[in-house]
């Protein structure tokens, strides 16, 4: 299986590579991981991972800096409907719009907005950093074999609010209800970092590899 990690200089991906290697060896499935922004390589892969760190605005900007990359991602995920996994800001970018720093147009794959977590007049510290519990909203292929209230690792100050509640596969609670993951046909996203979420995170990655 060929998996491409989209390379658009959006932060640290070493952990993502390592966790996918570990998950595939747990499954005994051979995978080839390529970190790339090359359109041919992306389109010929079976699955892609869209990582993302930093601000929504900067991630979108970096994505747009690479000529044709947005179109290639659209073709892969929307036209060819091949599995795509967005992590953290990688997931947030599915939205129509983000409001970090300034209003920025997203990829528009899952309609909704990305807004700052309401920390109730500083009663809650931001970023939301650490291990928090998942509560499932719908049956998700990503969470097969994972128990309700399992802990995963979050680090973010902004949250994705999809218009369609049915596309939310899990939530967590920090000062308010926060979307922890979304799923729309072949498009998967987690606000948390599966690559840093120990055994549960590896299980999520294994489930994605098995799709």
């Amino acid at each position: 299986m060929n998996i491409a990690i989209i390379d658009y200089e959006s932060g640290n991906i070493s952990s993502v590579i390592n966790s996918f290697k570990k998950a595939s060896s747990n499954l005994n499935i051979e995978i080839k991981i390529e970190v790339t922004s090359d359109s041919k390589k992306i389109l010929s892969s079976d699955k892609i991972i869209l990582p993302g760190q930093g601000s929504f605005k900067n991630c979108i900007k970096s994505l747009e800096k690479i000529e044709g990359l947005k179109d290639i991602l659209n073709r892969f995920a929307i036209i060819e409907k091949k599995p795509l996994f967005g992590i953290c800001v990688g997931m947030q970018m599915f939205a129509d719009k983000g409001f970090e720093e300034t209003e920025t147009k997203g990829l528009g794959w899952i309609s909704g907005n990305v807004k700052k977590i309401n920390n109730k007049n500083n009663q809650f510290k931001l970023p939301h950093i650490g291990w928090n519990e998942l509560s499932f909203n719908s049956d998700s292929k990503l969470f097969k074999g994972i128990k309700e209230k399992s802990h995963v690792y979050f680090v973010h100050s902004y949250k994705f609010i999809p218009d369609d509640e049915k596309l939310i596969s899990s939530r967590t609670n920090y000062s308010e209800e926060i979307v922890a993951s979304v799923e729309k046909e072949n498009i998967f996203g987690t606000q948390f970092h599966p690559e840093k979420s120990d055994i549960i995170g590896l299980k999520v990655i294994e489930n994605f590899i098995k799709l």
Partner: protein
Amino acid sequence: MLKNRIIPCLDVKNGRVVKGINFIDLKDVGDPVEQAKIYSDGGADEICFLDITASNENRDTIYEVVERTSKKCFVPLTVGGGIRSIEGINKLLKCGADKVSINTAAVRNPEFIIQSAKKFGSQCIVVAIDAKKNNNRWEVFTHGGQNKTGIDAIEFAKKMENCGAGELLVTSMDRDGTQFGYDINLMSKISSKVNIPVIASGGVGNLDHLVDGIKLGKASAVLAASIFHYGRFSVKEAKEYLDSKGIPVRI
């Protein structure tokens, strides 16, 4: 509900653990990677390496340690010690570190924190504040606690938050190594002043100190070194104890 984190810290010198324990199943007691793996298997919420390598020619040893650790441990890994350039951060992150902890360079040049947070995101920039009590205030120290700066620790904490630090790792120099417990006043003063998570460090001698750090010191996470190194308590025991005291932890 967000859980309070327990972070074991390992001092690493020339690629080797300085104060190691004798776990029976360890092949190499001095290998930071094996120790880190034991901690993460035991439920550590994060792992912290403090690189105390003094000589420049051996400074590269930490990269190899980080690279090997990130292939075995799938919890966040923070690395601190001697980080003073964007390239240095970049190299550590490329090797698999998730966060870097910056101390002396943050005091010397706060602009460095602004630039690093801009480039890598606040989520991976931890500012380590070493503070020592002086009359009614706490003063920031640098160079592993050797140099006075005259800077007020609480004001400095606020400044670092404004510069874009994602977390603060606060160590009491008065308590570090004493096993008398965290400096609760220092922790709670800083924690109430800033709106980013504070990691308490310095002075843990028993499990009640961890409880105090969270309950009284209002820390989001507690860091400890020797109580775990010398095998007095495992991470699992620490978590079970915190849980029994009503502190939310990941078990």
